């Protein structure tokens, strides 16, 4: 599959004292349609910085990031927004809007400053809500939605933009096991409908279950197949814990 996003020799740094502190160096990563990529690492290791770089919200400090073989910074922001959608860890509307107004924001890159939203936009919004099984939530106000419902509405917002790469920063953080399961099921279904997802998570179980590849940030940046990367030795070193294989409870959607 042709890569939509390509990272070549990417380094990411934050200012610290006299010079930069490198969070990621020499990262090579291809993101293609259908990919499910998890980004894991300890707090402060650079997961969000990497995701923001993938979403085009920050430039790489070294190396190259290309979207459809064009340098990320050469893209018009609105055109880029039609290809990549971004979900931050926390995003709350400042007024108590209905869910459908949040989803409609996803059409922003498609609508001119003075143009009306048309039938195509309304259809895209309705389709996006249907894809995350949230049609019934459309008229509900934000304050009345549960954490899981809010995340599904945010997913619908990303889908309404028609983007093919969805970048999500800890989409299951602060969700109970049931809501987390349903949000990840939605994400999983999206990869089967022509999209790629890249998500950060603190939950190793979530990464194991819902990704095909993993980027480990914080140990010199490892990229590989989930089964190869998520091994006790690496997890132990990465999070400074003892890790071993064992039995664990498995959660499934209700039948």
């Amino acid at each position: 599959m042709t890569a939509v996003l390509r990272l070549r020799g990417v380094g990411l740094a934050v200012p610290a004292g006299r010079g930069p502190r490198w969070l990621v160096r020499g990262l090579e990563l291809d993101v293609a349609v259908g990919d499910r990529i998890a980004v894991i690492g300890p707090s402060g290791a650079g997961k969000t910085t990497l995701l923001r770089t993938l979403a085009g919200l920050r430039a790489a400090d070294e190396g190259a990031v290309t979207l459809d073989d064009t340098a990320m910074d050469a893209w018009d922001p609105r055109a880029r927004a039609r290809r990549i959608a971004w979900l931050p860890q926390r995003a709350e509307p400042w007024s108590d809007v209905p869910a459908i107004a949040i989803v409609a924001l996803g059409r922003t890159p498609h609508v001119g400053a003075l143009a009306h939203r048309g039938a195509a936009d309304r259809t895209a919004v309705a389709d996006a809500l249907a894809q995350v099984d949230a049609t019934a939530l459309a008229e509900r106000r934000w304050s009345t939605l549960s954490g899981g419902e809010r995340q599904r509405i945010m997913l619908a917002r990303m889908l309404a933009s028609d983007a093919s790469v969805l970048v999500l920063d800890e989409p299951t953080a602060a969700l109970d096991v049931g809501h987390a399961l349903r949000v990840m099921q939605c994400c999983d279904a999206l990869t089967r409908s022509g999209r790629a997802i890249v998500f950060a998570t603190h939950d190793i179980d979530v990464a194991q279950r819902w990704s095909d590849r993993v980027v480990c940030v914080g140990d010199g940046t490892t990229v590989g197949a989930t089964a190869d990367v998520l091994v006790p030795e690496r997890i132990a070193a990465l999070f400074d814990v003892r890790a071993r294989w064992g039995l664990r409870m498995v959660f499934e959607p209700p039948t």
Partner: protein
Amino acid sequence: MSPARRWALGCAAVVLALAIAAIVVGPGDIGIADVFGAVGRGLIGQARADALTDAQVWLLRVPRAGVVILVGAALAGGGAITQGLFRNPLADPSVLGISLGAAFIAVIGLYLGLDRLGIWVTPVLAALGAAATLGLLLGLATRSTDTTTLLLAGVALGATFGAATTCVLALAGDRHELGIKVLRWLMGSFEGRSWAHLGAALVPIGAGLVLALPLARDLDALALGDDVAASLGVSPRAVQRRAVTAVALMVGGATAVAGVLGFLGLVVPHIVRWRLGSGHRALIPTSAMLGAAVLLAVDTLTRVGTVALPPGVITSLLGAPAFLWILLVRHRPGRSGRQHRPGEE
């Protein structure tokens, strides 16, 4: 017909009706037929300056009503933009000290006699004062997203500009004429506003409104924060720059021509958001029209009684309880009423 369109048409009709009432109400026996006759003659350049009715209607009351409409539209429209920009329903040009910042710089201009250079000087100075205050507040807002911090910062800035304005007045202690002029202006007044004032207000306020309308979608995109806005292809910094310019022109123009009028920019957008939702495409123009209608009603009321109260006093008397109501009752999750829907614009 969508609710937004119904509201727009309704507000336009109310503004027209109140404008006619504002021209009719006042000393002298002037009827609606006299108003239409004088306005018709005025429009074709045939107003008779020597005829009392024509002079009263065309030279005094029509420009006054025009100034009131512009100022009401500027303050309420500016309030709607300010609230979207700060993502805060309590952000209002008067609450955040923007109007007092505009007034302070304009008063310095009056003190130095700069207003004698031309009628455009005071609006320009007021716009610069409003822009500087907004810039300070935006700088604070990027450091702290806490509503209380922002409001307290606005209150502090307003108090500082108020005190600084008083200092300027104290320095001009022996210039009684200047002191009275400034005090009356600070209370908010439409007394003696002429075609020249209307022209001086029209340029900045019109420019501000023209700048503001294409901002509507971008202000909507800011609803979920700067990062999400940027991911939607909207540059938050560019929106801030354009919004600050638009609000500075609108509030600066309004303050320069009418003084400090409190709370209009807080209450009117809140009512419109309550009924029509948060979409700025409907919110900004509808707030502007409703603001014009409310200020026309206030100005007409001030001229009905035997004591002519300054309109700034009335807007503050009505607006302060409304501010408390929003703060204590409506500014809570789940209490924002009917909201914006895609396609309802």
